[in-house]
């Protein structure tokens, strides 16, 4: 009976090494400030991210939050994506050794109908493999080759018996490896899986928009940054479509590099952030893709601001308790003058009101976590196959 590795060997003319299989994700044990986070977006100096240009320091939203706490919450949908990656083997192709990476991808969107009703609205849960383009012995028909390979794998009795299916075999270009010595093939494989996950996220947002579920009264809150890497194809038409899907979507990041927080003049804002009082927000700043690198993307701007949702005296670091909020600027007016300050206030006040319940004791990032997002994350994790189960498919 052919197993997956045998199929890979046959199809790629490679040799599998039967090396140690493991989960490639590093478990996050303690929340740390990630100073090495790369950012492909730059601050637009001397531009305001919001219409109220008089706001120089911070703004107290305690009152606003209180006032809004009795009305319907703004956020109705919560989106989170995550992936678990595994190195399942090494394969020798043309005298070079590549890792065979595999992953489980999950993207879920949960809907909150009322405080007591929290259910999954959309779920994308996929198994993928990630191989170098060299796996294709021919230079042409890459897509066709990987598609065929996927079919072969899905037809193995082992995979069929337990009713699983690989949804895609991703490929990464090993050329990038030459550019930077830092990058390993393994990371490239993971990056391909990550990209696939991001695409799933976009798909779900597009789905919700298509169903007219997102509007001024029901926003989608996405876990993490909205700073998507530009699409490889970079088709302008598609981009503007995607951009429009994000009209009622905001991104909330638990972890961010405070060093990237800059004030309007481009100086580091980290100290101000550390001292941000409870329920205060910073002014919104405008960011943009690094022009020289991704110039073909056109104007793709964000407003970014921060809010403290938990008193610093209760948290373990001055940055715990602060979340970073992002919103893509859609209209021309927004692109020119930034977001309406009122809208920012409403969004921020709603985020403040989402601060409870907490996942204290369950997640070390509790101070930065929003409970609905935490639930969505939990739901996603519950959908994963166990590591042992997954690794033993190979």
């Amino acid at each position, binding site marked *: 009976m052919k197993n997956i590795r045998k199929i890979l060997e046959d199809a790629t003319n490679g040799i599998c090494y039967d090396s140690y299989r493991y989960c490639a994700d590093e478990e996050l044990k303690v929340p740390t400030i990630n100073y090495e986070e790369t950012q492909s977006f730059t601050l637009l100096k001397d531009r305001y991210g919001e219409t109220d240009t008089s706001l120089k320091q911070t703004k107290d939203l305690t009152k606003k939050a209180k006032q809004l*706490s*009795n009305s319907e*919450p703004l*956020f109705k949908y919560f989106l989170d994506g995550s992936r678990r990656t595994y190195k399942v083997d090494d394969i020798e192709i043309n005298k070079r050794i590549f890792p065979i990476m595999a992953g489980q991808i999950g993207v879920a969107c949960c809907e*909150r109908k009322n*405080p*007591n009703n*929290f259910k999954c609205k959309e779920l994308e849960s996929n198994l993928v493999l990630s191989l170098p383009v060299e796996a294709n012995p021919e230079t042409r028909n890459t897509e066709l080759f990987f598609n065929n390979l996927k079919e072969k794998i899905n037809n193995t009795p082992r995979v069929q018996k337990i009713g699983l299916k690989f949804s895609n075999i991703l490929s990464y270009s090993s050329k990038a490896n030459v550019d930077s010595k830092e990058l390993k093939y393994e990371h490239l494989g993971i990056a391909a899986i990550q990209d696939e996950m991001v695409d799933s996220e976009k798909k779900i947002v597009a789905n919700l928009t298509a169903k007219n579920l997102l509007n001024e009264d029901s926003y989608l809150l996405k876990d993490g940054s909205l700073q998507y890497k530009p699409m490889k194809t970079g088709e302008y038409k598609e981009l503007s479509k995607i951009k429009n899907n994000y009209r009622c979507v905001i991104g909330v990041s638990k972890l961010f590099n405070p060093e990237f927080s800059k004030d309007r003049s481009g100086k580091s804002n980290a100290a101000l952030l550390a001292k941000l009082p409870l329920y205060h927000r910073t002014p919104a700043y405008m960011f943009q893709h690094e022009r020289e690198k991704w110039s073909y993307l056109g104007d793709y701007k964000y407003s970014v601001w921060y809010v403290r949702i938990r*008193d610093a005296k*209760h948290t373990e670091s001055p940055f715990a308790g602060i979340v970073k909020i992002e919103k893509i600027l859609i209209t021309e007016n927004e692109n020119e003058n930034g977001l309406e300050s009122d809208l920012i206030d409403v969004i921020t006040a709603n985020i403040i*009101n*989402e*601060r*409870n*319940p*907490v*996942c*204290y*004791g*369950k997640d070390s990032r509790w101070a930065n976590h929003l*409970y*609905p997002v935490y*639930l969505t994350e*939990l739901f996603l994790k519950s959908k994963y196959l166990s590591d042992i189960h997954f690794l033993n498919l190979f």
Partner: protein
Amino acid sequence: MKQIGKIIATEKVPTTVDEFFFWTDKELIIKPFDVVKVNHIKSSITFGVVEEISHLTDNSSFLAGYISSDFGDVNYQQYTQRIGMNYVRAKVVGNSQGIYTPVLDGSFVSLASEDDIREALGLKDIKNPLPCGYIEMYEQPDSVTIPVHFNSHFLIGPEGAHLNISGISGLASKTSYAMFLLKAIQDQYIEKSKGESVAFVLLNVKGRDLLAIDEINDELTSDDKSIYKMLDLSTVPFQNVKYFYPYSKDIVSSTYGRDVKSQMELNKAYLYKYIFEDDKESIDLLFSNVDDPNQTMESIVNYIATGQGGFNGITNWNELLNEVYEHTKAGASGKDKEITVLSWRKFYRLFRKTIEKTTIFSNSISSKPKDNETRLKEAILNIKKNDVFVIDVAKLDEETQGFVFGDVMRSIYELKLGQAYDRNEADIPSKIVIFIDELNKYASKEVPKSSPILRQLLDITERGRSLGIILFSAEQFKSDIHDRVKGNCATHAYGRTNAIEISKPDYQYVPPVYKSMLTRLKQGEYVVQNPVFRSLLNIKFPRPIYKQFKNG
């Protein structure tokens, strides 16, 4: 039927042959004793009875709850309620195909239909059915009401016998339940003309509780009546009832009953008396609660009954008292050294107290028919099929109550053993059910081992089944009762009780949730244990069919 959840089996809490767990929505109302069914392998169905329901959230600690309320702000309202669910522990009571492997994770759990519930609890195809109440399950709109039947062979023999009811439910609830069952038994046997027959002897120990059981309860609503109909019971009160009141000249001073005269006119009430010549053997019963480690009381009774010493030729109670008094004088015990004067004095003291206080010890019985006087023993020896004898002892002092009860038991024993009387065997009821409330007075653990009443009770509970003497007893605290007395009861009904009581070893086998339920049971609710049922049942029964006296 309505699906309410799915089985959960985890590493730490697996499903087993005996129990399983399932989750339900946190707002689903389900309660202990409810039956659920689980789809199991080979299209079989496993039935379970809910034992425990827990609510669970992802709250890791109490502290997290406090923090989630904005660090202790009680007025704080949150946009999202913490995710939570209920999980239920259920005890396996059976499988439709006898498959007892544990139910599988993820299997559907649903409410059961009436038929399923019957099958699950072993209520289906009960032989010799005898209504014992009904069970109500689930909430509207899914609620079901199912009549429950005992197998009468397990209640009044021959397979099992004796019933014990315990509880502090108050307002004569224990009596009501016993009477409900007795009524069901009478209903059933009154129709039967052949084979088994039954008669009842009830002791009225409180106020007027049982002094009008052949009169209709005016307060019975049509709802109550429809329950009787559902249970296939007639809505007429007891039939063939005879009341026996302790004799006293004005009647009032020895009973709480107020209709004695009119009952006497209808020839259904009698006044009972004890005559020395015929009842002297029973004197020992007067001393059943007296500590008698050296059996001196017993030997005195024996001494008197056999007519030793000066006791030969005594014809009435006063002479007896005088003769006993003679023995209490210093130096009087010259003739029989084995009984000391001190013992005679004790005997005299106790005996005089009773004889002088009560009026039932009499010299003669009136033979005038309208006086309706009788000896209890005589009446009992003549008990007929379907007769219900109510013997009022409520107003008697404790010793005399014991005396009467003991005498009644002895008489029944004698009747059933065919001694002392020649009655046609076929006319004697094949079963006689005795009902006594406040059993703790006669069979508590503190009662002296030598007590003749206790011995009589043990005799009945241990051997009465084969003789056809069935004891229905009630008391507040089961744990007080002599182990051999309660151990021989096949059927137990538990009413509301208190926390101290349920901590006693008697309740060891009761699951913790049921235990705490016992402290919350409502009036008209009992938890019943019977060998036929697969688990404890939470049974309800309608209000009594006979007249109730609100003020005792």
